[in-house]
């Protein structure tokens, strides 16, 4: 039986040969001896979310993840769920978030983090073009694993949008090289078994997955999910190239700390990373 047209379409194309804007910036920062810090901000949460983005950029972020809220965020814990729900109730859409991003001019590369149906519904080509048009360098789609990434990756590659892939502690050894090979921007190391959210202590699995990934790639390896404090960021960055911090930042925003509070927290993590 020959593969159906659908199966053909699923073939995952090889990754673009050259790094895009996000990966280039992260590699350069790493080369300068810096540990990488990528905060996450939910797009459309609050009237001043664009100010939060600018503030965390100024406070020392190397790049920023912008969440486009989705109705059913299965990889997210309570904090990002709440931020997403509030943003959706306030009328945030992929179009409104990207429109506003176009005007943000954060001065650091931006990556959109959303769920696959947002891209699928808009159409791969249109979504990729909208990202590029809004100055977004990369996309992170946590429910689009490597095997399903083909159709999106073709559109993203063509539009010059980098596709960040996640690598999880559950991956057997032979899976990691295939993931890092196709990832561009950075490799998102999932620090623990679980969804996003703050944890009291850094999971041992964060160090293990970072070590396993660093052994198979020279692309930037950032650990996210469960990295909650400056100390934890420092601890895991002893192995990894840096961290993604989402819930710990968005909790402060949900508690009303605003752009200033967000900046204070990011500056604190930045200082701790720089002190190592």
């Amino acid at each position, binding site marked *: 039986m020959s593969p*159906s047209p659908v199966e053909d379409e699923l073939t995952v194309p090889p990754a673009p040969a050259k790094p895009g804007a996000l990966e280039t910036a992260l590699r350069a920062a790493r080369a300068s001896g810096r540990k990488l810090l990528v905060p996450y901000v939910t797009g459309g949460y609050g009237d001043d979310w664009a100010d939060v983005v600018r503030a965390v950029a100024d406070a020392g972020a190397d790049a920023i993840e912008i969440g486009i809220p989705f109705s059913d965020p299965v990889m997210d814990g309570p904090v990002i769920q709440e931020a997403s729900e509030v943003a959706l109730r306030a009328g945030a*859409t992929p*179009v409104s978030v990207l429109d506003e991003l176009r005007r943000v001019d954060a001065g650091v590369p931006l990556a959109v983090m959303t769920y696959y*149906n947002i891209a699928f519904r808009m159409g791969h080509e249109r979504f990729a073009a909208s990202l590029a048009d809004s100055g977004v360098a990369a996309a992170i789609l946590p429910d689009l694993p490597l095997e399903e990434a083909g159709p999106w990756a073709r559109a993203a590659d063509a539009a010059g949008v980098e596709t960040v892939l996640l690598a999880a502690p559950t991956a057997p050894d032979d899976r990691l090289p295939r993931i890092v090979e196709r990832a561009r921007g950075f490799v998102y190391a999932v620090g623990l078994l679980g969804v996003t959210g703050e944890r009291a202590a850094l999971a041992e699995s964060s160090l293990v997955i970072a070590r396993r990934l660093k052994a198979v790639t020279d692309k930037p390896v950032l650990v996210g999910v469960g990295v909650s404090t400056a100390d934890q960021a420092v601890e895991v960055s002893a192995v990894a190239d840096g961290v993604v911090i989402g819930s710990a930042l968005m909790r402060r925003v949900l508690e009303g700390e605003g752009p200033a509070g967000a900046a204070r927290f990011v500056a604190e993590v930045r200082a701790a990373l720089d002190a190592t």
Partner: protein
Amino acid sequence: MALPEPSASGRFGEFGGRYVPETLVPACQELEEAFRAAWADPAFRAELDDLLHHYAGRPSPLTDCRRLSEELGLRVLLKREDLNHTGSHKINNVLGQALLARRMGKTRLVAETGAGQHGVATATAAALLGMECMVYMGEVDMGRQALNVFRMRLLGAEVVPATSGSRTLKDAVNEAMRDWVATVEDSHYCLGSVMGPHPYPWMVRELHTVIGDEARAQCSEVLDGGVPDVVTACVGGGSNAIGIFSGFADTAAELVGVEPAGGAAVGRGVPGVVHGMKSYLMQDEFGQVQEAHSISAGLDYPGVGPEHSHLAAIGRARYEQVTDAEVIDAFQLLSRTEGIIPALEPAHALAWVSRDRAALAGRTVLVNLSGRGDKDVAQMMEILG
């Protein structure tokens, strides 16, 4: 085998697939391999058949309805899944998955539930096999299906409310998936319908083909070797429907799935991706999943299993919609004419038969009576006063 296996990527035509967080990909792959091996293993099949017979009470009977048929002007045959242990078809799937989970060395079952029937079935299997059980249920559904919440707890399960979004089945699935992402090493996600990432839509279908296989033989006996003109079932995720369809897919029988008007993924949805699968989905223009609204907690779901989307797309099955009011009438109609109180879910299939009786006049219609109405009596008491 009447319905073919999905493709290597878990697709039925363009629908299906495995759209899950990376953390779960290896678990889905292992599950696919484990199920394939178990399903081909005579010892596993014998153990499951034994449980289905001595524990769940299979085969379930086929009832040839006299008074209802007379009243509607057509011949109604009921496949009596309501008579299974725990009161619905859900036990077929759950016993299979629980045995498989144990075979895979898992010690804990995680499930979502809408009406509570799948949760009760899972809690039952967990009690039977000595496993831990965690059931997520929308807060709204916990209110309208309080009896089943109590049953689950009595059976030793922990029931946790899903408090986000619409606080119904869709949100319970989200919570169950979040649990599984964190506990995948020792837990099996015992999904309750032919939905979710590959291999679930295929595996759950296979575990329900027993409905169609039995019904095919029973119909043949009642209809002198023939098959019914129409085979119909309610469709939430679509497991009881695919189970009975599978027995007749290779015949001339018309296959009709019945969706609630407020949760008609096939009827009103467009292709989308949520809960691990590509399928018809009720969503807005931006891809946000919409909340379903149905009198029946078990059908209050904005998506549908991918094989139904495929059967609709290729025209092998068609999907009708009924309103809550039509369902309430059908619920009473079957109670009054046959002495069988149906669950609100299969009352949807009956509601379609009753509404379209003129078009169905003189024909033989097999209805999958997927569950009994005990759980709905309190809710109906309020509605009917």
